[in-house]
């Protein structure tokens, strides 16, 4: 049967980070690390730096702010201009609040859904779940996986290499 990758289990974040770093140094690129909480340095240990969430959020926020203000401007001066308590049609100070709220709203929504989208979530099914021990990944175990799609990957060699990292256990991830 085809494998999705090989999974090594560690029991401390420390161990995982070192292992990940060495695997990356060893030239493995298609790898991922799993931890029950965000671990510092783990991301760049596996060579992941770029992160476009901030950009998405910014775009969302700007879109929200603009739409908010333009909506009000259009309503008050173009769609149905009418004299309210002697105020000018375009009484911009009154429009600030809603503009601000819309900025926040769209920004926030963009941040959350952008993050989910970039993470490819929702994804209830994932091969790593096939490994029974992986259930511990959401408790107190730390996993490193080298994917079968990695050019340097070969079943035996990679397994050997992972064992050399002194994991608690090694298991194959069926795809």
């Amino acid at each position, binding site marked *: 049967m085809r494998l999705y990758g090989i999974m090594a289990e560690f029991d401390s974040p420390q161990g995982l980070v070192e292992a990940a770093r060495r695997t990356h140094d060893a030239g493995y690129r298609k790898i991922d690390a799993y931890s029950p909480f965000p671990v510092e340095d783990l991301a760049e240990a596996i060579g992941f730096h770029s992160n476009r969430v901030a950009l998405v959020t910014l775009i969302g926020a700007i879109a929200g702010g603009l739409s908010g203000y333009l909506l009000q401007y259009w309503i008050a001066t173009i769609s149905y201009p009418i004299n309210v308590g002697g105020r000018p049609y375009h009484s911009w100070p009154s429009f600030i609040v809603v503009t601000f709220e819309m900025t926040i709203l769209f920004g926030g929504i963009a941040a959350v859904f952008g993050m989910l989208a970039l993470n490819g979530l*929702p994804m209830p*099914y994932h091969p790593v779940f096939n490994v029974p021990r992986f259930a511990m990944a959401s408790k107190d175990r730390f996993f490193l996986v080298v994917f079968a799609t990695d050019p340097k990957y070969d079943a035996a060699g990679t397994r050997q290499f992972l064992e050399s990292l002194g994991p608690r256990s090694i298991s194959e991830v069926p795809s």
Partner: protein
Amino acid sequence: MQIFHRSTNTLSRATIFGAVFVIAGLGWALMELQRSPYITYAGVVKPQPVPFSHQHHVTGLGIDCRYCHTSVEQSSFAGIPPTKTCMNCHSQIWTNAQMLEPLRASYRSGESLEWTRVNQLPDFVYFNHSIHIAKGVGCNTCHGPIDQMPLMYQYASLQMEWCLNCHRAPEKYLRPRDGVFNMRYQQPTSAAPVLVAGESYYDQASLGKALMAKYKVRNVADITSCDTCHR
């Protein structure tokens, strides 16, 4: 352990997108319903005691609107003809047509005919026929091709947005006063100009502007103020 089947990935994303479209669709449907004849009665023929045909009386016999709708020029209310008006003719012609029986019954008994109101506004809207006519708004601009209606129906939606269409741009609709009751009136074209006070106009734009001035139509801000229609 694996809880979900592979397919759930696609499924879950599908549902998320699906939800968005469903909600949007629902909103759209409501908007449509709001404007549908079911709500507005536009184009809907309502049950009437006597199947009166405007087509026959207007086109066929060439009776002027004001013969029946007498108060249309002096009052907010155009007026529904009293039984008497119908009987002026129908005491001579069609004297034993079955469908006119309710009419004759009313005339005999003195009990009024109960028509169903066709063009109906909510109670908080105040419309005045006389002023619209004075300002050169044609009957059929709002009531539609009455001369081609075998059975009377409401032509426009009579919703606020519809009223505002004209109140925001009267010049697009105005016509000379003498054309107000003319069911065949056409807006001016280069081929068929409209003559007002010795001057002929070749397009509605110029005619509209001229009439606005001539009939002292108040400016848009005035006639879109709330108290124009709501009291």
